[in-house]
């Protein structure tokens, strides 16, 4: 069977093929190009439907009202964790002292498996730097699991996140690298959401510049 014929069959029933089979077929340049073209054609018809329906002022107004209502409902909850985070951050300290700030933003997901990374599980890599490793050693499985960092330097946490989200990191403050945090990270969250959560800590500031995270001292940022 021709490989592109297989691709069409896979696209007809994508759920019947494994992740590995999909990865393999999309490794082939011709199939990947064909797949991308079909995705673009699909987008073309999505846009057609979208434009035919038309997003008039009434639709946008309704969306705005929905957004406002949802956001205001959230705002009633948000100040509490912000206050808690701000209070805890008073205890922030530099290298060797744990920041006892526990973020439980994902209380609803507490029954999901959590990978813990703590200072007993740091290993030295070839460059002599400490590297966080997952408890079960199965990086692939751990990739999507919530990760609990217990007394782990910010440097390591950001490094894991950079790998997960495929971004580069620019450190404008050396001090913040050594800050040790107790922090629960949900890899399934968007990078923007994670950045927003981390910015609850008052000793550093993270901004996103395209595919780069810039970490600066909060004081120098103002």
């Amino acid at each position, binding site marked *: 069977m021709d490989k592109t014929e297989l691709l069409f069959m896979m696209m007809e029933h994508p759920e019947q093929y494994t992740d590995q089979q999909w990865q393999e077929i999309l490794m082939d340049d011709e199939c990947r190009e064909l797949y991308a073209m079909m995705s*673009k054609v699909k*987008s*073309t018809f999505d846009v057609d439907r979208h434009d035919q329906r038309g997003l008039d002022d009434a639709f946008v107004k309704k969306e705005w009202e929905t957004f406002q209502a*949802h956001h205001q409902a959230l705002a009633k909850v948000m100040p509490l964790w912000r206050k808690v985070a701000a209070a805890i951050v008073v205890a922030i300290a530099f290298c060797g002292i744990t920041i006892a700030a526990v973020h439980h933003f994902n209380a609803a997901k507490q029954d999901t498996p959590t990978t813990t990374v703590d200072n007993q599980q740091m290993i030295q890599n070839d460059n002599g730097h400490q590297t966080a490793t997952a408890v079960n050693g199965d990086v692939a499985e751990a990739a999507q699991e919530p990760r609990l960092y217990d007394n782990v330097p910010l440097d390591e946490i950001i490094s894991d996140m950079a790998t997960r989200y495929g971004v580069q990191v620019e450190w404008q403050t050396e001090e913040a690298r050594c800050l040790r945090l107790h922090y629960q990270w949900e890899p399934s969250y*968007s*990078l923007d*959401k994670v950045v*927003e959560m981390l910015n609850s800590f008052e000793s550093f500031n993270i901004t996103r510049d395209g595919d780069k995270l810039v970490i600066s001292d909060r004081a120098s940022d103002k």
Partner: protein
Amino acid sequence: MRQIGQLFKEHYSAMFRLAVVLLHDEEEGRDVVHDVFAMLLDGDIRFDADKARAFLLSCVRNSCLNVMRGRSTREQAMKSYLPEDEATEGLEEQIATLHDSIKDLAPPVCREIVLLHYRDGLTFKEIAERLDVSETTIYKHLRQAMNQLRLTINK
């Protein structure tokens, strides 16, 4: 909130459109756009007002890419997501070109198959039954159609 409201009014439609282009899903697209505005409302984000549209569309693109990256290759294929390196800023221009080029597909059966599949939602098997040909014939015409379209956007 008023400033955000103004941005929402001016740019929501384009942002939503881009999210749908990338995610092929209106509900998810709506969530992404709302999340971008929530981030603006909650965060301390500064950007040049003259470049608001470009900034907001960039936020939508990045958020969509995050959604896509969070899924397995199989899940991405089930949603027909573009490969990440294809989700570039020129995508919307390519789609505008495709919109015009699909009408010119030849022979007509190529255009018919594209319309039946993408516009009307028929499976390849259903198209084969309707046209009374084999599925392999459908694949052949579809591949021919995609090659023609690829040439138009690569001009």
